[in-house]
């Protein structure tokens, strides 16, 4: 008995519709990570508070202690010298009074540089700010080398 070849034609329209819908969704939500002009390796912390996506003033301190000020678009960061940091912060705060100040410090930056920056923030009447961190894994202990035996 010869079986007749039946050609099955599936209507792919709904599938293609969904595919395009998802495509458009991902295209519009994708934010390409801006090529970072300042390389910063963040310290780890267990804090899970998110930095707002917009309305931020980001103060970047790299490992050599150079300071940069920018909006959430880190690509246009402008360097600030230690002696005009206060003026720059005050100016940015005036221009954008509701902005959240985020300090993005490299973990290898010196504490002295960070302490000076925090002093400057206090002088600029910015007593609330965020320290940008990466998430520390639950089993990792704070401290050098994951807290291994008190010291490096």
């Amino acid at each position, binding site marked *: 008995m010869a079986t007749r070849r039946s050609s099955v034609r599936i209507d*792919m329209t709904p599938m*293609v519709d969904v*595919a*395009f819908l*998802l*495509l458009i969704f*991902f*295209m519009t*939500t*994708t*934010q*390409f*990570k801006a090529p970072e002009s300042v390389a910063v390796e*963040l*310290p*780890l*912390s*267990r*804090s*899970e*508070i*998110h*930095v707002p*996506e917009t309305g931020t003033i980001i103060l970047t*301190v790299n490992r050599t202690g150079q300071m940069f000020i920018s909006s959430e678009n880190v690509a246009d960061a402008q360097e600030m010298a230690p002696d005009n940091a206060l003026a720059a912060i005050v100016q940015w705060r005036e221009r954008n009074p509701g902005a959240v100040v*985020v300090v993005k*410090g*490299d*973990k*290898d*930056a*010196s*504490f*002295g540089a*960070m*302490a000076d920056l*925090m002093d400057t*923030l*206090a*002088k600029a009447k910015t*007593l*609330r*700010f*965020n*320290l*940008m*961190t*990466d*998430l*520390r894994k639950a089993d990792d*202990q*704070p*401290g*050098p080398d994951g*807290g*291994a*035996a*008190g*010291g*490096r």
Partner: protein
Amino acid sequence: MSDVAVAETGGKKTGVFGRVKKGRVGVRVDMTPMVDIAFLLLIFFMVTTVFRRPLAMEVNMPEADARVEVPESNVLTVYVAKDEKLFARQGRDPLQPIAWTDLRSRFEAGTAANPNLIILVKIHRDARYEPMVDMMDTLEDAKMQRFSLIPMQEADVAAVEAAR
């Protein structure tokens, strides 16, 4: 790619209103390459999308000129030396070396013994920024929300060197 199927129209047909109907041309476009590209882009955007936003610790500093006087016995001072080794002292006791791993239990024991305990963290200016965040994380783990964080003075540096 695409083929055109011309419907056979046997002579000219007249519609209801006497207009001449054109022969219906059914165009069938092969959409396979377009759908291929669509899926390719879909997979690309799905893979490259990062939903991760950066995380942060919140810091509330006191007013720059705020002064609080506390009895010295209520103060637990933790020193972070330049090489990131830790020393702790309660009140005016001599400095004791302490391991990073013991720090949290030290804070918890201190608060259990004295609920008014105030933690003062002195960090060497040439130490890195990372131990400061580690210290804040440890304090947070130990449920200590109030602490002071200040750079070491020269006297503190000397005291740390003497305690080694």
